[in-house]
């Protein structure tokens, strides 16, 4: 069982002591605690939103009040008092016009985060920095947006969603809540009412976005829920790759995060959405940590459109997240690649939904769950084929690796097929690290740790290889850079 102990240690290195737990001291401006129509109005006013947006929020708030918090996921947490949360908090400083104005303290925050994407250089204005655009979300408000000019040249709109509501109201109106309706679920409705900021991306027809787009999420002010809203529209024949990564400071109190991400891909468009989620998971005794209740959904609206979700989930105390694809356009493709690592008392209930509506639509689901400590890791997914969808193809693989005798690994896949020509395959396995494999590696002269590293690495490889280069670095760091080195 030595191997298990080693693996346990590694997992603990990966997810254990949270390196990013610090608090940046920037005075923030807050809405009063609790949720009411006044707070919704306050947020809308703060954002200088047009009247239609306020009405939309108020409607969502009214809808949310009538809804019930879902309890079907395999997660348990103390009841959330929605009136004990600040719904709006913004850094006091006004929006910056140039990077020079970025608060040094904020830059220091990014430095501490160890952002691997060289955005620090970008933010610092270093010549020759790689072309990764950062729309830095620092506690609910976009503080700085880089590379806007270059993107503008390509015709790509990349800005905070509150700006977009003001500058491109027609575009936003056309697509907002078309993928995740206001009443979709409890947390989505809440987000509609109180979302503070987020990202809007529009890639025009035929444009291949010249760089990877990236947003860093960061929950900063104490007791502040983070309600991000992301909307990405890829017009006909366009391509965009979007990176999302997050860390949050260490807190004792649980923080609520209820984001909504909507993706729309029109004819022949492709969106690649990658996430590394490393929010504070709580301490070794399960105290604190982020509650992560996220609704992410993509609509493959056009013919031959494609959406690919890749996620590496290592953080949060409680995760409730199902990045999904509605495959409406004929020949559209949905992909979901996921690594979810849980340790200590973390609980993750995550997976995907692939809804096949159009003919010749295809989907692939690869999910790797690694549970350690006393954590609970659940894959929950749905593959649905409607009767009009001919020649649908799906392949699903869900593997779980158990690294302690006190953790849990669960698989809850749903398959619902109403068309005879569909070809659906689902495979799931659950096992611990194989003693045979360990023995084999060791007999070749590898140390215990290296052997485990090789196996864990191999276990996740199918997913990791789908991450963009820039992100792979951070993800590998999370999964243990020392292990990676020994494997070569």
């Amino acid at each position, binding site marked *: 069982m030595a191997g298990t102990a080693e693996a346990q240690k590694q997992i603990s290195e990966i997810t254990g002591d949270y390196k990013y737990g610090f608090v940046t001291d920037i005075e923030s401006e807050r809405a009063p605690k609790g949720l009411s129509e006044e707070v919704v109005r306050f947020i809308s006013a703060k954002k200088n939103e047009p009247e239609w947006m306020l009405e939309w929020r108020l409607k969502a708030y009214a809808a949310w009040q009538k809804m019930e918090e879902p309890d079907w996921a395999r997660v348990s947490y103390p009841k959330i008092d929605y009136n004990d949360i600040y719904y709006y908090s913004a850094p006091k400083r006004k929006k910056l016009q140039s990077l020079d104005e970025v608060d040094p303290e904020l830059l220091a925050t990014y430095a501490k985060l160890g952002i691997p994407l060289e955005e620090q250089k970008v933010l610092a204005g270093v010549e020759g920095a790689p072309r990764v655009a950062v729309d830095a979300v620092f506690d609910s408000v976009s503080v700085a947006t880089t590379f806007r000019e270059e993107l503008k040249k390509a015709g790509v709109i990349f800005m905070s969603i509150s700006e977009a509501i003001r500058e491109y109201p027609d575009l936003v109106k056309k697509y907002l809540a078309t993928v995740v309706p206001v009443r979709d679920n409890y947390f989505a409705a809440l987000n509609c009412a109180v979302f503070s900021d987020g990202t809007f991306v529009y890639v025009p027809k035929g444009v291949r976005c010249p760089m990877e787009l990236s947003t860093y999420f960061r929950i900063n002010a104490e007791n502040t829920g983070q309600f991000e809203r992301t909307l990405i529209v890829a017009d006909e024949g366009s391509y965009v790759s979007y990176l999302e990564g997050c860390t949050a400071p260490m807190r004792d109190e649980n923080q609520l995060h209820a984001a909504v991400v909507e993706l729309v891909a029109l004819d022949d468009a492709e969106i690649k959405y990658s996430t590394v989620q490393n929010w504070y998971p709580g301490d070794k005794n399960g105290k604190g940590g982020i509650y992560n209740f996220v609704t992410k959904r993509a609509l493959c609206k056009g013919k031959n459109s494609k959406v690919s979700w890749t996620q590496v989930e290592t953080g949060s105390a409680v995760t409730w997240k199902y990045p999904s694809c509605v495959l409406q356009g004929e020949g559209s493709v949905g992909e979901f690649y996921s690594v979810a690592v849980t340790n200590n008392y973390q609980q993750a209930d995550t997976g995907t939904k692939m809804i096949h509506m159009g003919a010749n639509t295809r989907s692939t689901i690869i999910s790797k769950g690694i549970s350690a400590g006393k954590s609970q890791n659940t894959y929950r997914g749905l593959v649905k084929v409607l009767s009009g969808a001919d020649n649908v193809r799906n392949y699903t693989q869900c593997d779980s690796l158990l690294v302690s005798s006190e953790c849990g690994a669960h698989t809850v896949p749903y*398959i619902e097929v109403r068309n005879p020509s569909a070809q*659906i395959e689902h495979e799931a396995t659950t*096992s611990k690290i194989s003693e045979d494999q360990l023995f084999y590696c060791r007999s070749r002269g590898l140390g215990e740790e290296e052997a485990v590293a090789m196996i864990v690495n191999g276990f996740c490889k199918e997913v990791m290889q789908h991450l963009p280069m820039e992100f792979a670095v951070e993800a590998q760091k999370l999964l243990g850079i020392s292990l990676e080195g020994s494997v070569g």
Partner: protein
Amino acid sequence: MDDQLITGYEGQVAALRGTVPGTDDLRAQALKDFADKGFPTARTEDWRYSDVRGLRQQVFGLAAPAATVPDLPETLGDVAARFVFVNGRYAEELSDLGDLWQAVQIRPLANHFMSNADRVAELVRGDDGVALLNTALLRDGIVLSIPAGVEIDDPIEILHVMTGADAAAAHVRHVIELGEGAVANIVERFVGDDTAYWTNAMLQARIAESAKLTHIRLQEEGAAAIHTAKAFVNVDAEGRYVAASLSTGGRVARFEAHVRLLGEEADAVIDGVALAATGQSHDMRTHVSHKVPAATSSQVFRTIADSRGKTSFAGKVTVDKDAQKTDAVQSFKALVFDKTAEANAKPELEIFADDVKCGHGATVGELDAKAIFYLTSRGIDPATARQMLVAAFTAAALERVPFDAVRDAMAARIDAWMAARADKSV
């Protein structure tokens, strides 16, 4: 829940008072829980694929004794004994106990608790409205106790017949107990006429150390029937439970197997085939619970859905914290023949131990066009080709049936079902 329903079933419970001495309190409690819980709805997660609206629309009366003696189907090969239940009542004159009584303790459920009042507690109460109602309304069933070391080689058939039972229900309950090292084989059959009846059957079994129970089910209810059945099985160390079911009848049919592996090296085999067409819905559910180390389980399910038919399979494997060295596998394959047909699957794993080997595979598709082409190119007509492919497809779920006559009878029914499909398409 609808007061009318509660009042209706209250009346039935009152009418049954005293029929199974010792169970009156149990009935009352089950009825109370039933009134609280009500019947499952489309929103009840475990029932999401079973449409049992029919149960909420009317009170199903207690089926009256049959007016005439129904025609009985032949037994499937040699049997050790045959127990016949007509409209939920034990029909002594139609049953044949053979020599079974010499080796085995047989009692009607009604007398079971007279000298064993404390055994009422062993009755499974159930935790949803359907099972609770079975408990509240149980009247008849067979209690079979196979003493330690006794091996009954031939199958024991339990035949359920429903006739002239419109808007009426039969709530049967069988109790099977196998002593250490005992062997028994049960073949449960369900047949009925075209009346809109409801069969609500429960079977509970206890398999002691090294004992082996085979449990075959042929569900061929009438076309308008609702069929809900549950088996609750506990298996001790080195015991074996081998189950196979074929579901072709009824309008709405559902079978659940709840198997708990309670001793090391206990083994469960649960296989099944469901064929649904013309508005039928067949839901098969299994829950295998690995409670101790080194137990094994294996499941093979095959379903076919044709015109407006719906087949569903939900297989859950739970591995407790202490159940190291568990080996659990599950294979589910579904065929969908038609755009109005539907196949659902939910193969679920719930694992709390680390040193385990658990896996499931599920596929949904149609018959391989290439294979049909190959067979037809050899001069076989398309209908026969399809029949052959379906026979091969379902064979994996039948091959562990230990009796040739029973397995052949099941295969013959699958062939007949396919033949009916071919006729329809002409």
